[in-house]
């Protein structure tokens, strides 16, 4: 809110610090000041009043009270009128509040013989500085008093109130109102209104109606200064989608004890500026008077919480400067009475904040805590996550962070309609681009590839992040997904092997996946180039080429191979344990073996045969070449292995190795379609 420096100054006899200086003081001890701007002979301070201080500081008087505490100068309260005219307020209007919870207080006052005219220059200028338009002297005064005291006021033309009645009630179904700015609103039972004997004349706490508007002919003004339930105003304002200066203030709560002062202040100004005569008496529907709160402040606790000892005398001075009453200060526990305008203060910690900020946080010295030396707990989930990222990085993969949302279009690619229920939709997405929570990291990684392929053809990326799915509840889980551009299935498979090995996971194997029609997520994959990654009997993820249809849809110019691993499962299998395997002192012997097999034969079948036939003297079998070409017979491929023989307790004689090698050859040739090449 914008505050006028001159206006603030008008509450003080003593000079306030210069505008810039005052702004700095406010910033350190109260509120941030966005801007200090010189306008004519005034300075405007744009102050970010904290939301909990809206009740008392969304007004010049409130900021002046802060200035008073910070500069130790007394404040002069503005003049008010209690009415001295010959009429009585109750002769012109009666007030009926039907819901005391919705409207805890309603005060009304009448000013007669009013001359509605343009406002004086100074008043226009002050309103303008604070961003309000001048209407006429009566309406301007109501607004002026709101800016001054924080209490929204409303002025009705008494002659236009049917039955001379004001009724505070909830609107009826289908009731309508036209507001001062000629907008039409449909009301309902949730919206509190001010009505006359016939119909609503204002939306309570939000906006006045056109019907009893003050105009040039108005002679008798009924002023309203009321207190409304913040929740009801908030609800109503949201429902009809109308936010005003008044509704904003009522939403944040206002001291019910303020209504009287504000209405008297407005009456005084109307009398002064519009030649009105203030009627005697105040209509005041205020069944449950709000009394000041008492809070006990323990000075030992204050010291313990702030970490600094502030002398009792100084604490008392600070509290007094904020207009708090010290009821008892004999002991180390003070009894404080807090003025009702401080709606934000209810517990001792609230008072400690007041003491701390006025004392100045900059005066609190940094002190390291004295605590038991309890070492931090190791977080394994984070530990394995970081280790995984390191391994992938070292193997040449670059980490990306993508949005947690995916678009409607992406979801359509990902899943067929019958599975849409398994994804989680946002109630209020920013756009259709971000309508669903990502059920997989693959979709956004494909986007990354699509965007990067213009600049480079070497793309190896991964992401480790949360995915979301709906089972019975919303299920979120860490997922690890990597993608590589190009026909690189075996490179990525090598990556998975390396990763799992480094994470201490053995017994990894790959099972070709047979997709079933209802298993739609698998439709992301190329049906013939996809494997389940398994550790023992558990499936932990998939490795495969993305289906050409999808690649085409994402406008990617090359094949893409992806692994997609359930990180929650993976991290449970991780182990830091490594046991040293003694290195054999005896030399190893290497023999090569080439087998011609049908194209559809799996390497694993051949490997198994070699290992079984070879027995325990085989240390390793290494496939070093796979060849399919013109020179070979139709439908065949050539597999070439290095077989490494080694014993732990002796040097193998070449004769012994030859014997095993022959046994392997014989075993392989038992299959009529396999031919060992000699």
């Amino acid at each position, binding site marked *: 809110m914008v505050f006028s420096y001159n206006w603030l100054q008008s509450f003080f006899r003593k000079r306030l610090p210069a505008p810039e200086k005052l702004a700095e003081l406010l910033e350190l001890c109260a509120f941030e000041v966005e801007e200090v701007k010189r306008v004519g002979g005034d300075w405007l301070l744009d102050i970010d009043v904290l939301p909990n201080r809206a009740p008392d500081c969304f007004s010049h008087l409130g900021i002046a009270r802060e200035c008073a505490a910070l500069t130790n100068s007394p404040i002069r309260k503005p003049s008010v009128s209690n009415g001295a005219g010959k009429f009585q307020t109750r002769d012109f209007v009666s007030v009926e509040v039907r819901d005391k919870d919705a409207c805890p207080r309603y005060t009304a006052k009448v000013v007669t013989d009013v001359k509605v005219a343009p406002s004086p220059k100074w008043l226009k200028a002050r309103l303008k500085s604070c961003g309000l338009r001048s209407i006429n002297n009566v309406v301007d005064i109501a607004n002026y008093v709101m800016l001054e005291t924080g209490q929204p006021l409303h002025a009705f033309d008494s002659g236009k109130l049917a039955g001379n009645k004001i009724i505070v009630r909830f609107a009826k179904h289908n009731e309508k109102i036209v507001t001062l700015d000629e907008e039409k609103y449909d009301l309902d039972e949730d919206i509190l209104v001010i009505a006359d004997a016939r119909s609503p004349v204002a939306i309570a706490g939000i906006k006045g109606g056109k019907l009893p508007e003050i105009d040039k002919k108005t002679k008798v003004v009924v002023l309203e200064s009321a207190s409304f339930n913040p929740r009801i105003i908030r609800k109503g304002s949201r429902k009809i989608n109308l936010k005003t200066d008044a509704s904003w203030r009522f939403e944040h709560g206002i001291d019910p004890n303020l209504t009287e002062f504000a209405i008297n202040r407005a009456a005084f100004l109307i009398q002064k500026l519009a030649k009105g005569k203030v009627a005697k008496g105040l209509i005041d529907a205020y069944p449950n008077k709000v009394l000041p709160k008492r809070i006990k402040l323990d000075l030992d606790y204050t010291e313990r919480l702030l970490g600094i000892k502030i002398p009792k005398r100084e604490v008392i001075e600070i509290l007094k400067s904020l207009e708090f009453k010290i009821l008892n200060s004999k002991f180390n526990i003070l009894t404080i009475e807090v003025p009702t305008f401080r709606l934000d203060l209810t517990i001792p*910690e609230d008072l400690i904040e007041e003491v701390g900020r006025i004392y100045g946080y900059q005066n609190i010295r940094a002190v390291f805590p004295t605590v038991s030396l309890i070492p931090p707990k190791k977080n394994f989930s984070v530990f394995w996550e970081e280790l995984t990222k390191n391994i992938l990085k070292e193997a040449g993969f670059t980490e990306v962070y993508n949005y947690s949302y995916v678009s409607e279009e992406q979801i359509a690619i990902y899943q067929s309609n019958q599975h849409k229920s398994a994804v989680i939709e946002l109630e209020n997405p920013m756009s259709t681009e971000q309508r669903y929570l990502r059920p997989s990291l693959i979709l956004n990684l494909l986007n990354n590839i699509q965007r990067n392929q213009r600049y480079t053809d070497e793309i190896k990326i991964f992401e480790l992040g949360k995915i979301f799915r709906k089972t019975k509840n919303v299920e979120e889980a860490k997922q690890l997904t990597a993608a590589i551009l190009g026909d690189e299935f075996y490179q990525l498979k090598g990556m998975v092997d390396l990763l799992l090995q480094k994470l201490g996971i053995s017994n990894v194997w790959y099972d070709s996946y047979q997709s079933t029609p209802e298993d739609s997520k698998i439709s992301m994959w190329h049906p013939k180039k996809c494997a389940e990654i398994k550790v023992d009997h558990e499936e932990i993820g998939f490795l495969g080429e993305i289906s050409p249809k999808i690649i085409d849809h994402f406008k990617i110019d090359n094949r893409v191979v992806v692994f997609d691993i359930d990180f929650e499962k993976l991290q449970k299998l991780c182990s830091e344990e490594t046991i040293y395997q003694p290195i054999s002192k005896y030399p190893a012997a290497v023999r090569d073996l080439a087998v011609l097999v049908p194209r559809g034969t799996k390497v694993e079948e051949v490997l198994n045969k070699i290992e079984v036939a070879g027995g325990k003297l085989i240390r390793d079998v290494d496939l070093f070449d796979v060849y399919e070409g013109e020179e070979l017979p139709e439908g065949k491929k050539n597999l070439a292995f290095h077989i490494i023989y080694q014993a732990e307790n002796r040097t193998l004689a070449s004769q012994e190795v030859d014997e095993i090698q022959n046994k392997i050859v014989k075993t392989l040739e038992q299959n009529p379609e396999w031919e060992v090449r000699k």
Partner: protein
Amino acid sequence: MPKINLKLLKKQAQREINRAGDLKFLNEIFKKYLGKRGELTLVLRSLERMPKAKRAKVGKEANELKTFLREKFEQKKFSFAKATEDKEEWIDVTRPGKKLTLGHLHPLTQVKRKVEEIFQAMGFSVVEGPEAENEWYNFDALNIPKDHPARDMWDTFYLKDGLLLRTHTTPVDARYMEKNNPPLRIITIGRCFRHEATDASHESNFYQIDGLMAGKDISVANFKAIIQEFFQRFFEKPVEIRMRPSYFPFTEPSFEVDMTCLVCGGKGCSACQQTGWMEMMGAGMMHPNVFKNSGLNPKNWQGFAFGMGLDRLTMMKYKINDIRLLYSGDLRFLKQF
């Protein structure tokens, strides 16, 4: 047995070594004299069949000759190597090295690690919590009641299933306190969401660092020391912090925390709008209601909590001017880290 004339052998060998024109030829000469069946080798082998007196004399001479010839060979070999080095072989050291491809960790990951490391060194445990959160932990438990304007401080994404996307990582504090009694020190860094338009400094998903320290007498002064130490270690500069009043429903008192401007060191410059300070985080002393809502007795415990943007720290550290780059997946950006 051949007649042994070691002197002749020496002369002959020396002459041949000197004449040798290349390494291949030299190796052959070596073989001729010192190889498995080399002339001198044969002499040495024949020693054991000699009479004792002669054996000692010849043996000594033969071994001396062996040492002498080996030395000659080495010298000659070295002269060859030196000659090649001098004449033929050279490399262009200005040619670029062979490219090795390492991958890259995302800058947010790198900064997250650094933050965690500093806090872990001060005894803080790293904890995590869910991104899809319920109203209780995201708001109510943190003393942000329903239908209260304080909720407007957080623009929230709601899910059709009743949950919401957490607007901060503070709910993790409440979850942790439910299961663990003070004294405690935790730090949590995670993804958060705000329903707001995206621009160079705002993203609808971002990362927040949240910290909590609670005990019998953890104070504002302690907060100041811990956070000042954090910033000094993070930026590796002797920075100071200052606190200004603020409002968060879950802390009381609440602060806005500023740090000495890194650009001007506090003198005032355009980066800090001439104030000498940069806004870094929101913080405060945990509100008694939050302890209560987490099942702890606020009479027994007090402590501080703070929240800070990881994205902002990352952007400051690497001078990144647009937050959206962090979520772009652009390899031209990511490969710089």
